């Protein structure tokens, strides 16, 4: 008998994502992004994102079904992001998911966005070895997780204590007068620069925790820019970008590999929007190879927010035989990673 068909709905930030997944197979998906509407504000405006989710939700469900070549009647269960994320944005997806679940008379599973970022790798590289370590890096999150079981046992090892890595990219991009979102333009600029020419600080380096800090790094870049400005020197954007990026990926990969070694884990998954960064991929590959760790990074389209990650985690939760969420499921803007499934 084939595995159940899961409809996944994601709306925690600025992407409306819907996908259909069966087991570890992505049948089809669709993403509507409101990123263009946030560019002039230099960051995601929650009300703008929520309005866009409402407009995009049903059409995105339709496009995903068409892309997957299935109908709503084929769906066996609905999975939706219950948190963490923006309150108003989450509520649009959860409201729609409840309505679909009730209308189709199928079970509803409110799942964790962060764990979804790990689960999505199964669609690309097959079942995840147990246990694995996961590094999630995006505009909203920077977390290191010990994943014993996607559906039932995920442990947070560390988090950022201030800015998320992607947020630091956005802020530094503004300082360097590069566009929002800051990840891709800084990555491109850095490729033409010397990462060793300016050494920026490494937040929480060697502090014995798996936590991260990027706020001091951003301030160090701001100081550097202001000092150059005061001396009337031109900014060497490529070198600043390369030095900043080197600092970020050095700490991220060092702590991720350390976590693998300490916990005797031989698989590292890197996911989230920043996982598309070329320097992060390159350094992670090098350090994982040196430590004998298998590195798994989903393709960029699966690293950013999408419905496939939610459907993939939904499939795991159904497979684990966990009870569905109730129709009175509440969104939780700070749903802890230890709760892959919200009740």
């Amino acid at each position, binding site marked *: 008998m084939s595995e159940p068909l899961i409809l996944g709905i994601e709306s925690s930030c600025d992407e409306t994502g819907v996908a259909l997944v069966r087991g570890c197979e992505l049948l089809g998906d669709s993403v509507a992004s409101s990123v263009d509407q946030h560019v002039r504000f230099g960051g995601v405006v929650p009300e703008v994102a929520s309005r866009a989710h409402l407009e995009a939700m049903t059409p995105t*469900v339709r496009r995903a079904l068409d892309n997957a070549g299935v109908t709503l009647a084929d769906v066996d269960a609905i999975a939706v992001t219950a948190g963490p994320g923006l309150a108003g944005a989450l*509520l649009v997806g959860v409201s729609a998911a409840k309505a679909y679940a009730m*209308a189709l008379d199928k079970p509803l599973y409110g799942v964790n966005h962060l764990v979804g970022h790990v689960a999505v790798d199964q669609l690309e590289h097959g079942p995840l070895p147990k246990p694995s370590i996961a590094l999630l890096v995006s505009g909203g999150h920077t977390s290191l997780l010990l994943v014993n079981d996607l559906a039932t046992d995920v442990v947070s090892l560390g988090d950022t204590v201030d800015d998320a890595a992607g947020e630091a990219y956005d802020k530094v991009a503004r300082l360097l007068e590069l566009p929002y979102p800051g990840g891709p333009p800084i990555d491109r600029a850095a490729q033409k620069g010397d990462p060793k020419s300016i050494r920026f600080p490494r937040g929480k380096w060697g502090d014995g925790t798996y936590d991260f800090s990027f706020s001091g790094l951003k301030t160090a870049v701001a100081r550097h820019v202001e000092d150059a*400005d005061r001396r009337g020197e031109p900014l060497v954007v490529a070198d600043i970008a390369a030095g900043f990026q080197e600092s970020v990926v050095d700490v991220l990969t060092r702590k991720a590999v350390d976590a693998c070694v300490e916990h005797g884990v031989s698989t590292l998954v890197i996911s989230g929007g920043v996982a598309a960064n070329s320097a992060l991929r390159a350094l992670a590959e090098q350090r994982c190879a040196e430590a004998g760790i298998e590195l798994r990074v989903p393709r960029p389209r699966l690293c950013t927010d999408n419905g496939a990650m939610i459907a993939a985690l939904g499939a795991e939760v159904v497979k684990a035989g966990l009870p569905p969420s109730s129709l009175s499921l509440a969104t939780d803007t700070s749903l802890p990673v230890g709760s892959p499934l919200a009740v």
Partner: protein
Amino acid sequence: MLLLAFDTATPAVTAAIGETDADGAFTLRASASSVDARRHGELLTPTVRDLLTESGLALTDLDHIAVGVGPGPYTGLRVGLATGHALADALGIPCHGVVTLDALAFATGRDEPFLGMTDARRKEVFWARYDDHLTRVGEVRVARPAEIDTEGLPLIGDGARMYSEVLGAPAEEPLLPDAAAMAELALRRLRLGEKLPAPDPLYLRRPDAVEPGAPKKVRQWVK
């Protein structure tokens, strides 16, 4: 013709199933309301499910959905609209919009002019003028209560209750919309062949967002 109506544009979560027969006579099959401004998302779908159980109906029996398009505080408002869009999509039936204040006005049954008002937060109200319970005059607007010329007309709704001192008159019932009235109004308009608005939100305000200026200086002595 069987219609499910609900509204989440005020502190109330209200839902109802109504029916008209061949002669256009309206029967309310079931209705329920609760007031909890912070739990629209948790309450709406279970409320609809309970109405179906109570009336012995299935969602597949429905011919139409009508949902309040506000105006109302945005997060709650979107719960109703997202639910309406998805239900209609899954069931393959039309989803119509009803202006929330129109449903409130209809429930008064009044044949003389009055103003309807609901809370818009930020010390403002959403309001509209009605010639009678079926006839709105002009668009729904958002304003500070002190800026509204009430013309000495009766004031209906929770917005009028919150600012009755400024408005200089006590608020009259009903204070919050009832989906039973919304269902009856929607069915009446459908039967008369009137066009109901699309189920799109009435926000009446742009999102609060400012474009950033230059980055803040981190060194105090840098001008």
